[in-house]
């Protein structure tokens, strides 16, 4: 039930948290089964560009895999990830019902169970017992203008997440410092992060915020550039240089190591230049809905 009423003279929109459960459930399945068309198209383009025969063979398999997974509604990759759920909540929304995060986790639980998705989450990071239902999700919320809620479900595999890095540069390091840190990260990752990659870069903010920016950068539609001219230029330069590293598809050697580089930036302290690189494997999954 979605209704509107006046609270303190302001038009508010009520949403029951229980309504999120089936939405999150379906988003989990959709994200894991269906790679976006833009990604599959990009893989096809890369197949034409790739110079290595072995690299071409790998890309060909990845394209076939994406098409088969979507058609048969099965997971495109066995690592169906830890579930990152990002919600942009309009400030005119009022929640009713169970605790919002419990509703999100219930949706994840149902989606992973019904969708035959792998449960890859351990409860305590040191004791390491599988929670058995892929919860808890990593939930991030932002308050935005308006009365809508945008929900992004992003299952994040560990192969690429484990090769992601963060460094506190000094302001003097500048964009050259950013570039060399990104390239170093790509080289260290090699084939472990399942290239061709999508590279999310967060610059600025604080240590934690840069990391979040780098993950949010991965949500940007493929092929869309940063709106700031200098960052767009940096994205293009990085993409070109990453593809000169020779790492290639799955690190077997080749000319397609990354499909896209997305940078997100935020103001920072006069003394700081935080940089985070969040790598995304070839199975870049997210499903989005706005309610």
């Amino acid at each position, binding site marked *: 039930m979605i209704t509107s009423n006046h609270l303190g003279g302001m038009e508010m929109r009520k949403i029951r948290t229980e309504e999120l459960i089936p939405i999150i459930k379906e988003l989990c399945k959709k994200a894991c089964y269906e790679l976006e068309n833009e990604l599959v198209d990009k893989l096809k383009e890369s197949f034409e560009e790739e110079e290595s025969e072995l690299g071409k063979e*790998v890309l060909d398999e*990845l394209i076939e895999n994406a098409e088969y997974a979507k058609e048969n509604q099965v*997971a495109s*990759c*066995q690592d169906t990830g830890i579930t990152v759920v990002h919600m942009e909540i309009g400030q005119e929304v009022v929640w009713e019902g169970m605790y919002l995060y419990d509703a999100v986790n219930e949706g994840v639980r149902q989606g992973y169970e019904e969708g035959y998705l792998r449960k890859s989450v351990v409860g305590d990071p040191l004791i390491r017992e*599988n929670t058995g239902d892929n919860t808890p999700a990593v939930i991030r919320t932002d308050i935005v203008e308006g009365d809508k809620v945008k929900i992004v479900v992003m299952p994040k595999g560990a192969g690429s997440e484990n090769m992601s890095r963060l460094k506190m540069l000094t302001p003097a390091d500048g964009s050259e410092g950013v570039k060399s840190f990104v390239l170093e990260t790509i080289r260290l990752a090699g*084939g472990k992060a399942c290239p061709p990659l999508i590279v999310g870069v967060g610059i600025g903010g604080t240590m934690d915020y840069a990391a979040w920016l780098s993950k949010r950068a991965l949500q940007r539609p493929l092929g869309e550039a940063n709106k700031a001219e200098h960052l767009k230029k940096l994205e293009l330069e990085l993409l070109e240089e990453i593809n000169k590293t*020779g790492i*290639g598809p799955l690190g077997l*050697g080749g000319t397609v190591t990354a499909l896209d580089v997305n940078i997100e930036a935020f103001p920072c302290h006069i003394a700081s230049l935080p940089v985070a690189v969040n790598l995304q494997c070839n199975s870049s999954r997210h499903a989005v809905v706005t309610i």
Partner: protein
Amino acid sequence: MKVKLPLTREVVEELNIGDVLELTGYLYTARDAAHKRMVETIERGGKPPIELDNQTIFYAAPCPAPPDKPIGSIGPTTSVRMDPYVETLLKEGLIAMIGKGDRSYYIPPLMKKYKAVYLLGLGGAAAIMARKVKEAREIAYVDLGAESIKELYVENLKVIVGIDTKGRILQEEGIAKYRKI
């Protein structure tokens, strides 16, 4: 090239990096937690739950099997995490490992010494890889959930030779060929 499992030392010695193989036969899945447990058992003087002589281990934990299929999506996990356990298992006769990514510096000499190979699975192509699995049976460490040891019968499972018995490394040579900076 079509290859039957279990492998033999004669077959393995003929393989070269970059060879694309299609494997048919039985193999086992095991990854982080199962390796830790197997090696701890061996170090205590016990027997691992699977006979490793001439066997192949696939570093993988599949998705649950949908009702009409023997297994869910399956693909290789990052191999380097299993490196500390490799020599103990090679001593037990392990002949091949399937995973993804490059490995620690000490692994290629071990492949040479024990006449074993490191094979690369196609990371990310898990839905079509599952089609190559005809039977799957959980045989040990069931409490580990996705990470339990499973015996799989595969037909024409595509893998690429990553490290051969000469100790050559495909990724190293491949990347050097295309590297421009």
